[in-house]
């Protein structure tokens, strides 16, 4: 990435060794949940997260971090890192996907955010810090070393949220 930070892909348990923090990116959370099991990554990642490894989950990654998922698949399992309830595809189908400018706590200027079949945050726990909202609904939040976004900072060239995540570690 453009921040002078090594950002290797992690697809196997061996590739997790030496990683300081993890980004769980966008994609299909059902596919990611299946591949976490078949790759043997679920337990090693779970152990590292329990030891305090930082994580930034975006869209499907947010679903994998939330304590409660609505409209998910029954066999879909995440890491239960941040006390919130999210509804999968809660903003609707692709025709409801959108882009918008967000006011983000700690950033001087708005952040341009792209939402793709995004998860909808229905509840956040008392210990969760909400960093940005859209139409009154949390879309960027943090709890301890876990940051989650219902949009895709990886789809735009603006690196400020990645910088803030790294600074939070």
């Amino acid at each position: 990435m453009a921040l002078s930070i090594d950002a290797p892909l992690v697809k196997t348990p061996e590739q997790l060794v030496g990683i300081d923090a993890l980004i769980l990116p966008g994609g299909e959370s059902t596919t990611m949940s299946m591949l976490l099991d078949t790759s043997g990554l679920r337990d090693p990642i779970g152990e590292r997260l329990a030891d305090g490894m930082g994580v930034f989950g975006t869209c499907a990654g947010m679903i994998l971090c939330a304590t409660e998922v609505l409209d998910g698949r029954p066999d879909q399992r995440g890491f239960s890192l941040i006390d919130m309830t999210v509804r999968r595809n809660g903003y609707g189908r692709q025709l409801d996907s959108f882009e918008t400018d967000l006011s983000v706590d700690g950033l001087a200027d708005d952040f341009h955010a792209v939402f793709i079949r995004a998860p909808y945050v229905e509840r956040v726990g008392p210990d969760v810090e909400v960093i940005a909202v859209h139409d009154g609904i949390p879309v960027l939040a943090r709890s301890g070393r876990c940051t989650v976004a219902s949009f895709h900072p990886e789809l735009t060239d603006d690196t400020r949220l990645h910088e803030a995540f790294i600074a939070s570690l």
Partner: protein
Amino acid sequence: MSFESTGTFPVKRGLAEMMKGGVIMDVVNPEQAKIAEDAGAVAVMALERVPADIRRDGGVARMSDPEMIIGIQEVCSIPVMAKARIGHFVEAQILQSLGVDFIDESEVLTPADEAYHIDKMAFDVPFVCGATNLGEALRRISEGAAMIRSKGEAGTGNVVEAVRHLRSIIGDMKRITQADEAELFGWAKQLQAPLSLIQEIAKTGTLPVPLFCAGGLATPADAALAMQLGADAVFVGSGIFKSDNPSPRAKAIVEATTHYMDADILAKVSRNIGAPMTGIGMDENSVKYAERGW
């Protein structure tokens, strides 16, 4: 309510970006759609007949019955794609009205217009289009396609055409990055493609939208081959539900697409998944779908 923009190009391309590294599977009914989702597909393509059956039956192949598309949307939580005939913008309007997540303007269906493809800018839903070479890919992108798939030869279970088309598209992009400014005009003329897109490729070395591979993939090794050649993701059509044992094959192809560089994993997932579809050789193939589209 704050300002939101829907149906923009970044929003269309964004969904294509989210499918990178994944497998999109052809399904003809809700049961197959569930099998595909269970196996880890990133999206399903809802159609009435897989290409191998369209090939066998002959006749005119059209957009699927909306009722079957709705039936698949109801059981699936992953994106649902559907096919419209080349140039048939009314089929596309109907698919958009149904709320499909992506439209494939597909040469597998019988073309409706021999001169023009659909004006994809006029739609809020994203489109994927096939291409056999870079010029075709860039013409589709200039019409508004948010994803390109190399065409291959659908319904054959034979990967050779997919490899040819992928190598042609990626090979020409590599050559364009070596060209000087003056030569880019020649490339635009030769490829019959917009100069601005050629100039963009000269800088980036890649298409401005994701490049997926389709048409003839039947095994986990085929999927990994496409990925190693430079595809961003794969479509598997007849290859799954025309095989002996679709569910384990579907899952193996998903794992192979993720771990495409790891031969040990490819060897492991390729075991005990039953026989692939029989497939047909190109010299036995009388109808080339890839020649449809212009």
